[in-house]
């Protein structure tokens, strides 16, 4: 009897972050979309359950009827992940997280990123470590953007971060995973979920991240800047599932030489 894919997939294979269970291992950002309608459609096509938002000054004097992101991304349906994008100091990142907690009624899960410079958007790791310590001590559950350095990832886990999120390549670059071996080392060493954050360009990049054993992938630009963002969101959803299943299935060994699939005996000639 043929088994369907859903019968083969283990329903208990879920992403667990800070004690909460998620069926989807694809996390998406909400920036760079044409409008909020497209944002909502892309999130739905991605099947994402964790959605990042940014915290910014309210535009005073705006139309009070202007649609609000949190109307599209309902905090009752999605886990909202406020991020500290745009923060270049530990102090600004901590302040942003505290504002987010007030904004979201005491919600403690945040994505920390402290950036080093505007050209590379590379994480400033000493500042990231300092901010993580402050936030964990203040009761936050910190998912943390970091470079692909196994030692930095370990330090962040020791501090008490609930997930480490190494970059695959610079934010918004779409270059794919530049150092698979470092990502693999981080995964092997980690006791908390590892999610690739930043640098994914297309579906195969997301699949590679999952095949390496990552627990999830967070992306924004790869979907939002695709020619058809909603279709790309769907592609990413499938890629993350495919990569996860391939990881669980265990790939065949690599061989230098051919190995025939058909028997080489009993040939009719």
């Amino acid at each position, binding site marked *: 009897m043929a088994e369907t894919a859903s019968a083969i997939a283990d329903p208990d294979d879920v992403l667990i972050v800070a004690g909460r269970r998620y069926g989807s291992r694809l996390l998406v950002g909400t*920036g760079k979309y044409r409008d909020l309608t497209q944002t909502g459609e892309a999130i739905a096509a991605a099947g994402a359950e964790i959605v990042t938002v940014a915290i*910014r000054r309210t535009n005073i004097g705006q139309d009070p009827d202007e649609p609000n992101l949190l109307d599209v991304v309902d905090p009752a349906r999605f886990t909202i992940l406020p991020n500290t*994008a745009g923060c270049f100091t530990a102090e600004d990142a901590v302040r942003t997280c505290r504002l987010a907690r*007030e904004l979201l009624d005491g919600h403690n899960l945040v994505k920390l990123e402290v950036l080093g410079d505007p050209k590379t*958007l590379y994480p400033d790791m000493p500042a990231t470590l300092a901010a993580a310590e402050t936030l964990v001590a203040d009761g936050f559950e910190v998912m943390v953007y970091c470079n692909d350095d196994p030692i930095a990832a370990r330090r962040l886990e020791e501090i008490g971060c609930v997930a480490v999120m190494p970059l695959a390549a610079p934010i918004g670059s779409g270059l794919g995973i530049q150092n698979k071996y470092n990502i693999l080392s981080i995964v092997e060493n980690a006791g908390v979920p590892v999610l690739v954050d930043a640098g994914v360009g297309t579906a195969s990049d997301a699949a590679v991240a999952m095949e390496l054993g990552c627990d999830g992938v967070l992306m*924004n630009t790869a979907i939002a800047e695709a020619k058809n963002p909603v279709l790309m969101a769907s592609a990413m959803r499938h890629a993350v599932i495919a990569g996860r299943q391939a990881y669980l299935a265990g790939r065949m060994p690599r061989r230098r030489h051919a190995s025939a699939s058909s028997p080489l005996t009993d040939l009719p000639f």
Partner: protein
Amino acid sequence: MNIRLNGETRQFDGVQTLAELVAELGLDGRRLAIEHNGEIVPRGERESRRLADGDRVEIVHAIGGGTP
């Protein structure tokens, strides 16, 4: 009374509290977080938080964003 609001100095007359400022700006009912002179003011304390000339107020909300 002058308030430094989101980085710009603006004049408000007849506004005494943070809650009145939010109403004056037409932002009642919106999901916001507010800092008053660098300190986060919980939603329930906006009514009782009095403003003085020269105070700094930051009002923020959630917008689209992922990685910067």
